[in-house]
């Protein structure tokens, strides 16, 4: 992870990232953590602290729901699944992201045509 992506840049998208993982199937904390690393092609690690805080927030707003798995060896896993509300939110966030990406591109890479004289 040499080319570090700024945490500030990604913070606002934590929820979307988690929803995207859960959209593809129920999962539990550590598995989600690993999936995010994998999705970023090993360029980004979302810390567990951030992850669990997001779980609590997403569950409170009804985007995800949790249930306990029935493993006994090494302890139970708490699984999360995306709700219908969560799916809707994900689609909304994705739309907003696509829009923002376009605008930011203009703002960061765009040049002003200098045609005054």
């Amino acid at each position, binding site marked *: 992870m040499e080319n570090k992506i700024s945490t500030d840049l990604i913070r606002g998208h934590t929820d979307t990232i988690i929803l995207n993982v859960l959209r593809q199937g129920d999962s539990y904390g550590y598995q989600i953590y690993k999936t995010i690393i994998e999705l970023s092609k090993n360029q980004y690690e979302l*810390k567990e*602290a951030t992850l669990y805080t997001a779980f609590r927030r997403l569950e409170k707003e009804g985007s995800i729901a949790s249930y306990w798995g029935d493993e006994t060896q090494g302890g139970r*896993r708490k699984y999360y699944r995306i709700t219908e509300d969560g799916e809707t939110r994900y689609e909304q966030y994705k739309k907003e992201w696509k829009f923002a990406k376009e605008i930011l591109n203009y703002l960061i890479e765009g040049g002003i045509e200098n045609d005054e004289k």
Partner: protein
Amino acid sequence: MMRNNVDKKVQAHVDGLFSGVGESQQLYDLKEELATNLKEKIADYKKAGMDESAAFKEAVSSMGDLSGLVDDMREVGQNKAKQAVYSSMTARISAAGLITGILLILFGVLTSAMLYFMDMDLEAVTGTAIFVVFGIAIITYSGLTRESSKKYAMNRVRAILYAVAIGLVAFSLFVAFTTGFATGEVYIAISSFMIFFLVGIGLWLGLIFTGTDRRKMVA
């Protein structure tokens, strides 16, 4: 033995993270979630070639800053009303279970008594005691999944296993009396008793030796 050592270190670490935070069912659940995931991460690091203490250190330090979660939990611990909402559903389910269990036991005892006074054969009298066996298992499950003022609710899978263990022990007694009275031979009673009793006790012991402490700290 090694495995237990890691488990203990993880548990101690997680407990330490939230030391001084008011207890709640949510905190108890979060700690279990964190501990399970940490153990898995440590196991992965070890598989990648790290030794145990290095794996533990790395896993713990890579978790990031948990102070937000700690604050969140402190708030939950202080808010008794929130806790009540959180646990009221499970409390109701377990209350229904306790009532069902007690009624089943009474039903079993009363029908057995009735048959006894009808001068039925003894094996018929003990036969209806099967309701008592089911009642005991249901009460065990409901009692363990209930959050009390002193203890947290046990997780459901463990509670089911406990219910099965105690149910088996009760069932072994039931089988012993029923087959004993039916055949009139004590050795048959003992031999059929033995099978279920040993399995039940074995399961029970297994659960006792792997259990985590559910006692609440006394404030």
